[in-house]
């Protein structure tokens, strides 16, 4: 029954979404609120039906219903309970359902929050969101149906991709999709603004928090993806510039640019056209990313299934871009700037530069990602673009962005006087410059690493200068220190939330810099009882043991690790899944603030007498995850509802 009910629910949902999109548009054009109300009900219906689809699919996974093709491919009788749930979105069909469900949830929240407050925009927002929804439902019903039957029903399924059997896989796609789908909201508002002609600042004010929320989830998704890559894939890295990673990184870059450029519009009534373009670009990039990873057009180490879905996404991308850019061209005259840049030394120009750099970074990532395709189309030569290109181009951009992170928040709007520059930046610049010496003494030699560390000190100093000064001002008004600080954070939560996010990004940047500059590794074959030494660590091979797990066979090595004192026994493993060509590495590691010891088991002799092992000492990697936590705090602070300032 499940396939029939699920399939029918998706189809009805599709009909409702199409109806709702049309009804909201016609309703507002012809001034019939009843139609808009009907669209609202349709959106509610879509949410209920998609929730039902999602629940049915989950139920099918939990009960091993192999009559569903999707279930049979992505699970087997040995799959543990926990991973049967995550397997729901372990492949294409289910992830589209998850995506659609989140989108319907966002639509619902938009209705609840904005149906009163956004009178003119609201019906069009509903139209756009339901139209996007309709597209995903079309994919679910036609291109990638999760409820397809499999006959004859197999006795057992193939099983989930073993690499996805990891806790990171629960949260990573969820966070990433919350980010992707969340970006639909600002896009819908932007289009609504263009269609209704109300291209003023209302849509910006209303979507600011939506953008922060989506941005935050996107950041979280990227970081968890990095963590998954680091502790599951066993190559010791967290980022490989793979097309799939780039697909998520590009909208992150443009969304970051947007978060900054909207502030200029709020303050100075400038950049209307630019902000609308950024929203469209960001949303387009989320679609492009999905197209890229799901169409099989570009080879990637992430083995995703392919199918007709690529054509669907490309058509939709074309529709979105033509519609949005067409509307932009149509409203061209209304979008001319009202303000003008007063001075190069101003916050506006710092933010503008930040935007240019972020978009340039997004463009280089884009270029590197599609270059293999371009090369084949133009020259007929197959090439691949690897990490060296991306690093070489992006590292200078990111260093410049770090510098702006220090300048932007403190420099004055409009025109910064020399005096204010001196007041704000003398200490941070001095501290940053002075910090070069101790870093150098500590062994930081590479120019890039040294610059990154110095810039971090500089930015941290600017944040401290600002915070200390604001706290002092409140103390003069008679507040105590701690309440003054707390009040600052809460009352100017957006500003200080932004600062905390900046700190988080800096900490991530330190982790990235450190791990790139100072990580060391070695690979060697050890006989039982033999040891290898690296960076003060001594790793001795004690032996191998084998075990039969519920859905795979596992060979585990035991290695005693010490660095002067005992660190512990690390047990990297190799897992043999019957459905996989090659064994899956089970990494073992000890995380530390200064460095991680990271061990991967390679080949071994059947009798356990010897084993090849890859030993890495990865420096400062933990700071990437710590930075992620700080970033979370900052984002939470920024998302808090803004307090009314006392008159």
């Amino acid at each position: 029954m499940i396939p029939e009910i699920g399939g029918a629910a998706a189809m009805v949902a599709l009909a409702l979404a199409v109806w709702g999109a049309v009804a909201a548009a016609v309703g507002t054009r012809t001034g019939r609120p009843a139609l808009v109300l009907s669209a609202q009900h349709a959106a509610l219906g879509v949410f209920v039906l998609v929730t039902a689809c999602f629940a049915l699919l989950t139920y099918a996974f939990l009960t091993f219903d192999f009559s569903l093709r999707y279930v049979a491919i992505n699970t087997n009788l040995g799959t543990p309970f926990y991973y049967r749930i995550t397997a729901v979105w372990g492949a294409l069909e289910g992830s589209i359902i998850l995506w659609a469900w989140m989108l319907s949830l966002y639509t619902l929240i938009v209705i609840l929050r904005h149906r009163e407050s956004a009178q003119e925009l609201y019906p069009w927002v509903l139209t756009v969101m339901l139209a996007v929804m309709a597209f995903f439902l079309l994919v679910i019903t036609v291109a990638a149906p999760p409820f397809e039957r499999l006959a004859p029903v197999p006795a057992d399924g193939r099983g989930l991709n073993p690499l996805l059997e990891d806790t990171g896989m629960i949260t990573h796609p969820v966070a990433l999709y919350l980010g992707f789908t969340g970006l639909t909201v600002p896009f819908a508002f932007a289009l609504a603004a263009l269609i209704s002609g109300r291209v003023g600042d209302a849509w910006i004010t209303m979507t600011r928090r939506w953008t922060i929320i989506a941005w935050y989830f996107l950041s979280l998704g990227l970081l968890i993806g990095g963590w998954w890559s680091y502790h599951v894939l066993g190559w010791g890295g967290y980022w490989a510039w793979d097309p799939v990673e780039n697909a998520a990184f590009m909208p992150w870059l443009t969304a970051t640019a947007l978060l900054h450029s909207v502030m200029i519009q709020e303050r100075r009534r400038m950049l209307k056209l630019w902000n609308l373009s950024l929203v469209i670009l960001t949303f387009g990039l989320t679609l492009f990313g999905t197209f890229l990873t799901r169409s099989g057009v570009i080879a990637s180490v992430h083995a995703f299934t392919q199918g007709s879905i690529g054509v669907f996404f490309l058509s939709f991308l074309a529709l979105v871009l033509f519609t949005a850019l067409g509307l932009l061209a149509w409203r061209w005259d209304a979008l001319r700037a009202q303000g003008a840049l007063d001075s190069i030394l101003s916050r506006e120009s710092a933010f503008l530069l930040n935007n240019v750099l972020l978009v340039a970074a997004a463009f280089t990532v884009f270029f590197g990602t599609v270059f293999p395709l371009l090369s084949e189309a133009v020259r007929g030569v197959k090439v691949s673009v690897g990490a060296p290109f991306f690093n070489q181009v992006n590292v200078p951009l990111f260093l410049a962005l770090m510098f702006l992170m220090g300048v932007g928040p403190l420099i004055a709007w409009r025109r910064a006087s020399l005096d204010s520059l001196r007041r704000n930046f003398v200490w941070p610049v001095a501290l940053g410059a002075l910090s070069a010496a101790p870093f150098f003494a500590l062994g930081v030699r590479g120019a890039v690493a040294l610059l990154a560390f110095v810039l971090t000190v500089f930015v941290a100093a600017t944040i401290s200068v600002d915070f200390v000064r604001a706290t002092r001002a409140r103390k003069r008004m008679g507040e105590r220190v701690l309440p003054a600080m707390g009040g600052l954070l809460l009352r100017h939560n957006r500003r200080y939330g932004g600062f905390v996010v900046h700190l988080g990004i800096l900490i991530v940047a330190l982790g990235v810099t450190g791990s790139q500059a100072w990580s060391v590794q070695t690979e060697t074959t050890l006989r039982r009882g033999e040891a290898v030494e690296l960076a003060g660590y001594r790793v001795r091979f004690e032996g191998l043991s084998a075990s039969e797990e519920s859905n795979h066979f596992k060979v585990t090595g035991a290695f005693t690790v010490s660095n002067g004192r005992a660190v512990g026994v690390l047990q990297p493993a190799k897992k043999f899944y019957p459905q996989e060509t090659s064994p899956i590495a089970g990494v073992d590691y000890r995380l530390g603030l200064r460095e991680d010891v990271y061990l991967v088991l390679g080949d071994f002799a059947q009798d356990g007498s010897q084993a090849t092992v890859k030993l890495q000492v990865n420096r400062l990697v933990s700071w990437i995850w710590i930075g992620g936590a700080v970033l979370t705090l900052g984002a939470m602070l920024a998302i808090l509802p803004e307090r009314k300032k006392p008159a």
Partner: protein
Amino acid sequence: MTRRPVRWLLPLSVVPLLALLAYGFRVNPHEIPSPLVGRPAPGFALQTFEGAPFALEAQRGKVVVLNFWASWCRPACYEEAPVLERQWRTYRERGLVVIGVDIQDRDEAARTFVREFGLSFPNGRDTAGKVSVDYGVYGVPETFFIDRQGRIRAKHVGAVTDEAFRTNVEKLLADTTG
């Protein structure tokens, strides 16, 4: 509107990009250029499921189609098995050798696979995984076309089709220089 027709170029600017992406459907990222193409095929010897020995070196002077498969490789290996059998029957008269190498598999499941498809060309298991490593097998199925001099001339990733099989084999059979 007529004053500034230039702005309408904005939506049109995405056309080249979309065209490029659409072009992507025509190319196959799975045609990974193998560094082995043009190189001598690594030698190997194994025992077929019937118990007969098979050695690649002994086939010198003949065109060899080397196919890597596994019984769990669904659906690609299931799609191509009938193709291989059909083509082998067509070309065996002209001296073509087809050898199937089963990798990462259980003996029983593999034998069932051979029996079910009634494969009559030699098939054997790569028990130690050495052959697939030598050939840099990325995933199953993969098919190598080896010429009379024992050089790899083409590699096909994914289920082999009648057409791909025919084109490659005809080319190598026609080449009688060796």
